[in-house]
């Protein structure tokens, strides 16, 4: 197991380097001169501009910039934004918000998706199953921002059950509706995945054996069917945490949430390379680590998998 973890950690290194380099290259290629943009219409004094360029390493060749940036990340020095704030301070402010939102969305999609998917899988071909499948298809097909608008309008404006936007007031209550919107599409995927998996495992030999040796229906379903069916679902959920945090851009925009997505979107539009790369780097790391964590969870869920 330790050997396996070590090998997986080693495999993460090239992915991490490649992903950060790719992002850095893309942000580097963005048109426009961010330093000139700082000065607005009047433009900056040449000397001031040169000094700022030197301060942000913008005068050095691309690859040197990247290496300097990498050195910064490894020492947890993410640099400063163009408005002079430490990027790490900004991250400390926005990441907890997005993290809370994503965890709430993940909980919502996991609990509801697995429950509905299990019932649908056990009753494959019946009315409940057909309805659940249809609902999941519609949720996948309707873009997330349409779901957002409609919920915001109906629940927030018309019924006034929940606040319409979040703003500075980040609480469980204000984040509830955005979390449901954010997790909606993944809920549909979790539902479908659980349903297929349960329906397939119900016909497996080990389930027949369990039934044959006289176990109660609930024990067969809860222990034998569900545990085996959860393997692909857990993989999906683990990979989804990273995707949710990155995908929060749209949801955070609609509900005006001061999280990573909002900050990132603004930073991209202003060409703030250090902020963009830092935020995206952390998102990528979250994504990679979540995937590693999922692989470790496999061993717990599936006794057939042993890491030699």
């Amino acid at each position, binding site marked *: 197991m330790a050997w396996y973890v070590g090998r997986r950690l080693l*495999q993460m290194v*090239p*992915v991490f380097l*490649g*992903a950060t380099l*790719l*992002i850095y290259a*893309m*942000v580097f*290629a*963005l*048109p426009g001169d961010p330093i000139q943009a700082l000065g607005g219409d009047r433009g900056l004094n040449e000397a001031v501009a040169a000094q700022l360029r030197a301060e942000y390493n913008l005068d050095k060749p691309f690859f040197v910039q990247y290496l300097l940036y990498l050195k910064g990340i490894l020492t947890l020095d993410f640099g400063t934004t163009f408005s002079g704030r430490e990027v790490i301070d900004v991250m400390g402010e926005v990441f907890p918000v997005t993290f809370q939102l994503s965890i709430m969305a993940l909980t919502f999609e996991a609990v509801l998706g697995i429950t509905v998917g299990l019932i649908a899988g056990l009753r*494959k071909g019946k009315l409940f199953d057909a309805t659940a499948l249809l609902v999941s*298809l*519609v949720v*996948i*097909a*309707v*873009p*997330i*921002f*349409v779901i957002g*608008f*409609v919920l915001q*309008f109906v629940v927030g*404006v018309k019924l006034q059950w929940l606040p319409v936007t979040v703003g500075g007031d980040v609480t469980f209550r204000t984040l509830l509706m955005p979390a449901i919107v954010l997790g909606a599409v993944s809920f549909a995927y979790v539902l479908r995945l659980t349903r297929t998996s349960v329906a*397939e495992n119900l016909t497996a030999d080990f389930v027949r054996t369990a039934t044959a040796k006289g176990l109660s229906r609930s024990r067969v379903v809860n222990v034998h069917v569900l545990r085996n069916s959860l393997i692909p679902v857990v993989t999906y959920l683990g990979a989804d945490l*990273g*995707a949710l945090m*990155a*995908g929060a*851009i*749209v949801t955070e*925009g609609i509900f005006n949430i001061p999280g990573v997505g909002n900050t*990132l*979107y603004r930073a*991209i*539009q202003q*060409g703030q390379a250090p902020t*963009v790369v830092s935020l*995206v780097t952390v*998102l*990528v790391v979250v*994504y*990679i680590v979540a995937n590693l964590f999922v692989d470790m969870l496999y061993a717990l869920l599936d006794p057939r998998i042993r890491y030699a």
Partner: protein
Amino acid sequence: MPDAVSTRKHQEHFFAALDDTPLAAVDTVDEEAAPASLWADAWRSLRRRPLFWISAALILLVVTVAAFPSLFTSVEPRFCELRNSLGEPSAGHPFGFDRQGCDIYARTVYGARASVAVGVLTTLAVVLIGAVVGAIAGFYGGWFDSVLSRITDIFFAIPLVLAAIVVMQMFRDNKTITTVVLVLGVFGWPQIARITRGAVMSVKNADFITAAKALGASRVMTLIRHVMPNAAAPIIVTATVSLGIFIVAEATLSFLGIGLPPQITSWGADIAKAQVSLRSQPSILFYPAGALALTVLSFIMMGDAVRDALDPKARKR
């Protein structure tokens, strides 16, 4: 074994009806009958599914609308009069008017082209890149596989919409259908690559591949003629479903204001504009969103139907 025979004496004996087909007839292979290939089986099962026909009809409709929008409306989608702003449906304008006074029906009809073009072209690009990378990694293995799989991991680790937002900024002044396709294609291929790699790896050790090699087929020919056709099923299914997902991704980018420019009529941009009018007239949101959802739905349902038809395990039930 005299004992065994004697114990059976008291049991009843059953005989199967005598089959008097001559041996020659049993052994004859009917060369006229079409071979029951995977695809022939799948088609036979598909034909009986209402879901397949419904989604096929919807896809045909959307593609026709995208190709010949003028067949469905004579109203110009970009001809807008402010005096019609938020107008109710009237004769010739069945869906009413949006805030700018544009005909919603005409805009919904003309918006199909952008979505379908982005969906189809991106899927083609993604399948092209992903299938080549995945096939080489899976078939040749070893050193090729290590490098290509790590590159796939790198692109997989960057979420699609995030990458698209960053890259679309580069094309800020030059946003066309081509640039959107390019951006989604460059970051959308890892999934297809992984699936192709898995499929190729499961096929490449089959007996018929060994037979092809033994008969002297070259590596490349073996891959193209024998491995790929047998690994195609999961790629086709994933591609069909992704087509719908890419249409949603384009709409998301247009919604964020960095997808297609306003000159191109698109559902995503129209949905974004409808946000401000939602309270006064929900139908402005309903029609483009409904059209988009129906299009995506038909592609996902088609993918589902094809998957079920190709999966012998699912077919039995």
